[in-house]
Every structure is written in C-alpha cells, then in structure tokens.
C-alpha cells in the first residue's frame, strides 16, 4: 500500500482515498470466477451474461462518482487512461473501418486457470467500457454513443480478450 496514515495506526478509508492505493489484482478474479459459476448454475447463460454486463455498468457508475479522465476527447483516449489509472498499465486500441477494437492480453477478470468456460468472463469489462463512455458524453457531447461486444475471451480459450466498440 502506498497511503500513509500520518501516525494513526488505523484509518477508515474513503473512496477518494482508495484511488491512491494499489492492491494485488488476483483477489477479485478468483472470487469473480466463483460468482460466474454460481450465476450460471442457477440462472443459465443468458441471464448470467446480462447480469455480468450490468455489473460492468454499475462499476462504471461507481467509478465516475469519484473520478473523471483528464482527457475526454476520444473513445480511445478515455479507455487508455482508464486502464492506466485503475490497472496501472497501457493496452492496445485500434480503429478498423467503423469499429474500435480493445485488445487486452492481461484481462483483469479472465483468470488464467479458467479457459474452458462458455461464458466470456470479461463481458463485465465490455459493460464497464460501454457505460463509462456513454456517461462521459455529458462532458463532451461530441463523444459518440457506443455499444460494446466481447468478441474474444481468454476464459473461452482464446489467446487474448477483445472488445469491439460500435457507434450507434
């Protein structure tokens, strides 16, 4: 952790303070993979996919209450800055014809022991990207309204995760 308590042994953190703290990433994907199985077994694949996308939307809503990107100029800029701030790394985005593709070789939720699922675990990331961009349109109306589909997922045995962004 990189936050100091100023001599106090324990502090109750606020969400703004959480922005300054680094944590090991693995805890979440390990728990998340258990949740996907639980949902799938009770409700089936269709509901699971829909609920995980909604989870991404809710994460985006939570994030944007406490953080906005410095540059709200383009979809690619926003995605790259979001990854840098929340996962401390860059990633590749590429515009091809009328879509933007986000290629993630180190997906934060497709835990590497899971490669035979019929659920793309990172649909939560598709939902997250979709909601972040669409919610930021209030700051920059020139941003397009988008929808995001997951077209490749490591949880389904692919080499990398790819999110395809379409403009509405």
């Amino acid at each position, binding site marked *: 952790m990189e936050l100091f308590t100023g001599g106090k042994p324990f502090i109750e953190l606020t969400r703004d303070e959480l922005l300054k703290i*680094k944590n090991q990433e693995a805890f*979440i994907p390990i728990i998340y993979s258990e949740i996907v199985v639980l949902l799938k077994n009770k409700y089936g694949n269709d509901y699971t996919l829909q609920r995980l996308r909604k989870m991404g939307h809710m994460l985006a809503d939570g994030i944007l209450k406490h953080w906005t990107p410095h540059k709200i100029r383009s979809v690619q800029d926003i995605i790259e800055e979001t990854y840098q701030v929340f996962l401390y790394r860059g990633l590749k985005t590429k515009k091809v014809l009328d879509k933007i593709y986000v290629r993630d070789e180190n997906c934060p939720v497709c835990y590497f022991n899971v490669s035979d699922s019929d659920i793309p675990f990172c649909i939560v990331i598709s939902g997250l990207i979709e909601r972040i961009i669409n919610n930021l349109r209030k700051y920059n109306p020139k941003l397009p309204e988008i929808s995001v589909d997951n077209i490749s997922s490591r949880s389904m045995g692919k080499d990398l995760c790819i999110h395809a962004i379409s403009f509405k």
Partner: protein
Amino acid sequence: MPKEKLGFFGKLLAKIGKHFYWWKARKMNGLLMALDMLECVRIIYEYHDNDLSAALQTFKELGRHAGEAVIYEFLDAGKRIFSKRLEDFPVILESAWYIFMGDHIAGAELLPAEGELPQRLVWRVEKCVFCGGLKQDDSIIVNRETMGYDKTRLTWGSTVCGVMETALQSILDYVELPYDIAVEETGCIMKGDPFSEYTAYFWPKQA
C-alpha cells in the same frame, strides 16, 4: 520436508521474498477493488432475495473455494518458509498477507489457549480496502443488524475469512500439524469497530 522451526534465514527470506512477489504482482486500484467487491456481494445478495446475512454466508463459502486457487498461485513458493511450529505462523501470515494484498498487518500475534478458546492467531488490517466508503453508499445497507452478526458472526470481510481458512488449513496439513482452523473477522468497521481484525482459531483435531 517442512522445517521444524523457522530460523533466522527463513525469517529473512520471508521479509525479502514478500517484497519481490508484491513487486511482481499485477496491481489494481483500491477503488476498483472495493467497488468490485461490492458488486460481487450485490449479485449474491440478489441471489438470496436481498438477505445480506445469507449472501455473506455464501460469500464465505466462495472464499473457501477460492482459497485453493490462492494456495496454488501464491503459497507454493512459500513452502520455503513453512514450519511445524505454530509460533512461526505470525511470520508466515504477515508474508502471505503482504504478497496477496500488498498491505501490512499490524502485529500478528499467537495467543495462548484460555478457557474454552484454543490457541489463536490475531491480526489487524491497517487500512481495510474492502469497506472503504461503504458507509456513504446506501445501495446496500451494511451494519451489524443487516449482516446478522450477533447470530452468524458474519461480516463484510467474510469472504477473506473463507480464503484464509482454506489457505491456512492447507499450510497446517502440509506441515502435518493436527489442527482444524476457523477464521472470523472479529473486528469490522461495518459492524462498528474502529478497525478490521481477523482471528484464526486452531482447534486440535479430534482423534
């Protein structure tokens, strides 16, 4: 073969090794971690028709399953610092916690058996990221009553208890110490305590 006792070099290895593993680990921002945790609980909360206590019980169970992955991913390397002495467990725990959470724990201590309580390991978390800002979030009401703490001893960190139970039990089995472990979050900010505190109870195995 597990060591009988953790010597000076074993303790040094634990202190240096944890920084290496932390440096190597992929990191996530604390805000994303806390929100992820909240949304994971929310899914199970809905699954149990908005019964938070039932959700936390399931969450603890998921943590127990997840503990196996933790052992597999993080603690295999720790074999070098495992020993057959319970007195060495605070050192093992501090290293494992740091590797896994990137956080220091305050003075992990092995307490002697007293009354009906067995020997137990107690540690406090300096800055609990899981509940950060949760008191200001009214989308799920989390407190001593809604968690059903007085009946169930479940808290917001129950899943961490599940993970730790499996991880510590695996270590005990590996070093062939005859204990069954149970972990509880005995201090939780969401139930009104000023800090997060975990207790691992070492119950002697019944013959």
